[in-house]
């Protein structure tokens, strides 16, 4: 009996991972950016890039989101809201920091109202550099994160050619 339950657990876990990786629901949060990264994120939903055909759906509520896409250097005002959103997301959850500001504060590093990047406030799982990163780079980064959740051999193939040396970096846990 026990052995059978273990197999079922494994299968269900695998299915959940596959579903999450193949159809992630994504929440977008701007922590005080110039909007450059945000408009490139929005561009990924529009016909030329069309991230939705890969199953990525933009969500409005933290409770339903698997992945949090963050832009901006985190202003003091946005900080509380960012933490609250992160707390409202159900486990397992992943955070992607998009753009130089989200990575390290960018050109605003050291400014009095800026915390200096998303990872100063919440844990980050992947970093996508750029000012702003192109929509292709954003999709590439999201796919890289999703691939890191899947066992090797069943990884997603992005519609864009992925080189091994693309700048997006997934933090290994």
């Amino acid at each position, binding site marked *: 009996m026990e052995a059978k339950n273990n197999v079922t657990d494994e299968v269900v876990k695998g299915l959940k991972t596959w579903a999450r990786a193949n159809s992630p629901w994504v929440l977008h949060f701007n922590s005080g*950016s*110039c909007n450059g990264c945000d408009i490139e994120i929005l561009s990924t939903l529009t016909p030329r890039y069309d991230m939705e055909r890969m199953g990525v759906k933009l969500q409005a509520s933290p409770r339903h989101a698997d992945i949090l896409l963050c832009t901006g250097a985190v202003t003091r005002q946005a900080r509380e809201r960012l933490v609250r959103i992160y707390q409202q997301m159900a486990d397992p959850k992943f955070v992607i920091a998009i753009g130089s500001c989200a990575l390290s504060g960018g*050109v605003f590093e050291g400014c009095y109202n800026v915390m200096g990047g998303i990872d100063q406030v919440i844990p980050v799982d992947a970093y996508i550099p750029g000012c702003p990163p192109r929509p292709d780079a954003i999709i590439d980064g999201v796919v890289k994160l999703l691939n890191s959740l899947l066992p090797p051999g069943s990884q997603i193939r992005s519609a864009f050619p992925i080189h091994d040396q693309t700048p997006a970096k997934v933090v290994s846990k």
Partner: protein
Amino acid sequence: MPESNAPIRFTIPIGPQHPALKEPGHFQFTVDGEVVTSAYVRLGYAHRGIEKAAEQRSWIQNLYLIERICGICSHIHALAYCLAVENLAHVEAPPRAQAIRTVVAELERIHSHFLWIGVSAHEAGFETLFMYSWRDRETVMDLLEGLTGNRVNYSANLLGGVKFDIDQAQADSIRKGLDFLEERTRHYLDVISHDSTFLQRTRGIGVMTSAQAEVMGAVGPTARASNVKRDLRVEAPYAAYKAFPVQMVLDTRGDLEARFEVRLKELFESFRLIRQILDALPEGELAVRLPRRIPAGETVVRLEAPRGEVYYFVKSAGADKPERLKVRTPTICNLTSVIRLAVGHQLADVPMILAGIDPCFSCNDRMVQVRDTKNDSQKLMTWEQLRQHGIDFYRSNGK
């Protein structure tokens, strides 16, 4: 004591407080049923402290900081800064550079207006129009990328000129792109002036008279739609606008429909202007050198960004860093008008009234607090929910 027959309205504190209400909502509306009786906007979510930072960076370092004040109108900010510094240094960028700066500025206006029409359509629930306009916008993004190397943050300006030239091949591809964009603009103008469901959300809504626009300090297309003749390219021409003038596009109706039409119609001026400049690009250098220390003095530069007047005040004490930099964006001027306009309108109209000024802050995650004095209730909505409220309201009350 005389008795009043009017219902007394006051805000009743509701408890226990929703935990999320502890944080300030971006927007707070008090309503009486569906009608907005007071409106309040909380800013500061994108306040980074740029003016202070500018005092601690060199003149050149500031160029890279200024470009990133706004991702949508990056070039106009950088241009304003460069013109201000050039003023202080008593230097003028060469005519070819000014012309190229103007071409990029107009291409930026095109991208910004296409972005805005998509976002506004999204606010009204017109997803198709959003998708189409953003697909078309990719054309102008390609043109800008081909010219400058980046889709956003073009970084075209140098203190003293521009970084790159426009050659024949690029000029030809720009012309081709403009032909496509012009045809699409004609289509969108047709849609917004004839589509009945769209007109339901815009015609006669958010009316601002000429006098009100003046008093409230509105700028840009928001003001021009109320027949207020404000356009820096015409009133105080800068860069190449003296040699290549534009016509001001005005409208007398002052409603949301007028604001939509003014932005689309002024795109035709942009198309015409870019073509004219490309046909007559002045010969010469691309930049002149500036000293590392900028002479002491003060200057004010005012330019016409896609959203309206952007104002820069720069003071130098003769050092290698600015003494004071002040940036006043157009949105702060237009926001005052939105707040006052919202009062008296239905809550369902608020998303479109805000879209009508083309606000320069992110469209995501704006929390809205709504206090209803008629039903004694208070709730916290996301902007998404407010948007949907507007869409549902007009769907059920529509023709």
